[in-house]
């Protein structure tokens, strides 16, 4: 039982969903934004600190939500570190392709391969259109933070 559910709830998701590494506020941050999925009540806020070159030096989040949204937020915080805004956008595009939403996958940049590999376990939500939003919520919040958008971002 539930064996076939392992494609959705892979170990890494259960692990990061229950013991997220980056679930905290940053005391000092350059940008923050919240994301909200009204249909299911998930909420997340992300904080970003930039390096002098404008890349993300540190990312963290606080949120409430399901294992998938928490794991996705955590993996997001991990994978965007060290990347510039443009690189994060590109990574998100690749990630959405993994989820079967957004534009079809282009050949990933070599620089993104490892990160996309890391995010791959989230690809199981493909089959669950409403859970795709759980997996992208934190990413939408990050994009809003990068744009300095003070408003809450919305679900897709």
């Amino acid at each position: 039982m539930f064996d076939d559910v392992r494609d959705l709830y892979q170990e890494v998701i259960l692990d990061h969903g229950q013991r997220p590494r980056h679930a905290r506020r940053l005391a000092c941050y350059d940008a923050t934004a919240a994301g909200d999925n009204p249909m299911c009540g998930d909420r997340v806020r992300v904080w970003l600190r930039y390096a002098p070159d404008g890349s993300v030096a540190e990312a963290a989040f606080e949120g409430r939500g399901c294992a998938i949204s928490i794991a996705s937020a955590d993996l997001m915080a991990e994978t965007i570190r060290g990347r510039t805004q443009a690189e994060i956008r590109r990574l998100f595009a690749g990630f959405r392709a993994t989820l079967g939403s957004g534009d079809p996958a282009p050949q990933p940049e070599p620089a993104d391969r490892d990160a996309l590999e890391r995010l791959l376990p989230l690809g199981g939500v493909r089959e669950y259109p409403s859970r795709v939003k759980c997996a992208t919520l934190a990413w939408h919040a990050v994009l809003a933070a990068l744009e300095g958008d003070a408003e809450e971002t919305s679900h897709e």
Partner: protein
Amino acid sequence: MNVALRPAAPAFDVERVRAEFPILGQLVRGKKLVFLDSAASAQKPRAVIDAFRDAMETQYANVHRGLHWMSERTTDAYEGTRDVVAGLINARDRTEIVFVRNSTEGINLVANSYGRGVMQPGAAVVISEMEHHSNLVPWQMLRDAHGIELRIVPVTDTGELDMAAFEALLADGRVGLVAITHMSNVLGTYTPAQRIMALAHAHGAKVLLDGSQAVVHRRVDVQALGCDFYVFTGHKLYGPTGIGVLWAKSELLDRMPPWMGGGDMISSVTWERSTWANVPHKFEAGTPAILESVALAAAIRFVQGIGYDAIAAHEASLTAHALDRLAHVEGVRVLGTAPDRGGVVSFTLANAHAHDVATLLDREGIAVRAGNHCAEPLMRRFGVDSTARASFGVYTTHAEIDALADTLDRVRSFFA
């Protein structure tokens, strides 16, 4: 004229189309049903009947709410109809499609949300003398509640908009919105959308087209038309009752406050304040017409399967035939002579009231509508209390129009 240059007429076989409509085999008072009341509401093809059944038998749950299979699939179907509708009218974006109950609700939504929420008291709304009550009463109510001025474009003797008068009504620049039918449900007249748009936009007014009739007979492209709002209703397009469409440009929908409150249209709710979901859900409070959306998609695919070229050609031929046959029935007077018209013909018969005409036709199985067609001001304009109206759909045949004309001739003698 070089025949070879004409595009091949699309293959249109009215008998094959009729075979898709089970109801057309019904007898009425022992006679074969001759249904000439499609402008009031059209009959439903097998595809629509099956869509209802299949949804209820195999795939149904509430939408947007469940995380389970039935709900996911039903949500896909419901939201998928937005894409189908966007394709039908060439909307730029699927989120510009708002589902409402019918055209009437679509217009009330605009009158309440755009009218009260965006327009300022003192602004004016222009409608025409040939509007259906559904595109008239909401603006009267807005006038009375919100201090909007209501201006009326007169209709000429031929049953067309008086475009000079229209331009004059716009002149002072106070008109915020023009709400005009795209095709009259009484006269059959298509209004000159392009000119309406050019004049209205030149004077800073937005334009709502009531496409309840128009979208049934011809291809509609909201981007080519250049309008700002477009409404239509499912049941006239061979689709279900209980669902209609409001299309509006994104930037307008974004600026408009919600009208009804409830489930599914909120982003978050606290006692102090609620925030709204994104467009289009902001305008869709409560459980929507789920089954109807599935059936509407089936109806649209059915229409697209026949193709608007074939439909328009068939109906133009029917209308020409009807005008010709009615012209030869003594005592018949047809309202309106506009050259650009769809498959709707209203007429009176000397010495016989329209209701009596309709009742006698009904005795022969011929269904026409009689009354003021929810267009009292237009009736007054033409100096009549009521008319009989024959209207045509994809399933109408030339023989049915012959039956109408022949029977009318006998009705005339009956009341002579």
